[in-house]
């Protein structure tokens, strides 16, 4: 099950914890994977851990021109694109009262604007080939909200609405579009939390642990698979039961 042999995938934000895990899982399932991100040396490290064919396509997602060219760069490297995993994202956390235009625009442009651009540039080829998988990595807070993250939550909720609309536009052409909404995932940021804060965090999670990159990656492999052909426009919540929506 969930064999991606012969498929190609582009993963943005592949140098981060979740992106890396997704790239590894897609590769494990047989896909050729293009890794995108800004830190080229880290992308090299990730590529070295993949067992299958891979490519590195660095891109700064705040550079609109570069984003517009990313899919064609990817296709030159690994062939026509079957699977897009839009995972890259940034935060500029502040209370709304303190948030300035740059905080707002940067987050919306990188998280949501690049999703629009990337999707637009790969959907044409996918339509021709009558097959495609668009997977947006959103966040639980895009659905629940979170104080200090009006910009980030707006961008993540935006991804969900965008994906639902796109899913309806392209469903008849064999293309699915879904989002995955991770809950709290272990990262260098959560590692350094003091014990009492960690405990408070864990009390909110019925599973009693933080998520791992691999938990999200498994969901991505599923949504990318042939078996998920009838699943589209959905948000798959992977959060240990922290929010049941």
């Amino acid at each position, binding site marked *: 099950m969930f064999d991606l042999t012969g498929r190609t995938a582009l993963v943005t934000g592949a140098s981060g914890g979740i992106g890396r895990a997704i790239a590894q899982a897609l590769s494990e399932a047989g896909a050729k994977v293009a890794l995108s991100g800004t830190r080229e040396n880290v992308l090299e490290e990730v590529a070295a851990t993949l067992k299958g064919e891979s490519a590195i396509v660095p891109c700064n997602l705040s550079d609109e021109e570069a984003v517009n060219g990313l899919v064609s760069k990817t296709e030159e490297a690994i062939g026509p694109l079957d699977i897009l995993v839009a995972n890259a994202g940034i935060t500029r956390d502040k209370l709304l009262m303190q948030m300035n235009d740059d905080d707002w625009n940067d987050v919306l442009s990188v998280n949501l604007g690049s999703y629009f651009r990337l999707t637009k540039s790969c959907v*044409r080829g996918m*339509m*021709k080939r009558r097959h495609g998988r668009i997977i947006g990595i959103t966040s639980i807070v895009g659905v629940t909200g979170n104080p200090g993250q009006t910009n980030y939550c707006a961008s993540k909720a935006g991804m969900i609405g965008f994906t639902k609309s796109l899913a309806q*536009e*392209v469903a*008849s*052409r064999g293309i699915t579009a879904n989002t995955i909404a991770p809950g709290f995932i272990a990262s260098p940021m959560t590692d350094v939390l003091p014990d009492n804060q960690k405990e408070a965090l864990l009390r909110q999670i019925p599973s009693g642990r933080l998520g791992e990159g691999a938990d999200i990656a498994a969901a991505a492999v599923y949504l990318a698979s042939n078996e998920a052909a009838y699943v589209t426009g959905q948000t798959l919540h992977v959060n240990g039961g922290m929010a049941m929506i």
Partner: protein
Amino acid sequence: MSDVLERVKKIVVENLDVDGDKVVESASFIDDLGADSLDLVELVMAFEEEFNIEIPDDVQESIRTVGDAVTHIKAHI
């Protein structure tokens, strides 16, 4: 090189799965040939490929009939 109308006709018949007789210059892709807006996008993609031209988004919106397509293509090849 065969006539532009004939080549357009062939693409329309293949893409929309319609009878060749219905594909006349005055035929509207949506009203007469049963295309939806996504079919229209795909048709334009097929025209671009067949004639090796680029049809900008704002022009795409003005292509409503077979004749519109032929006129535009003739002007750009």
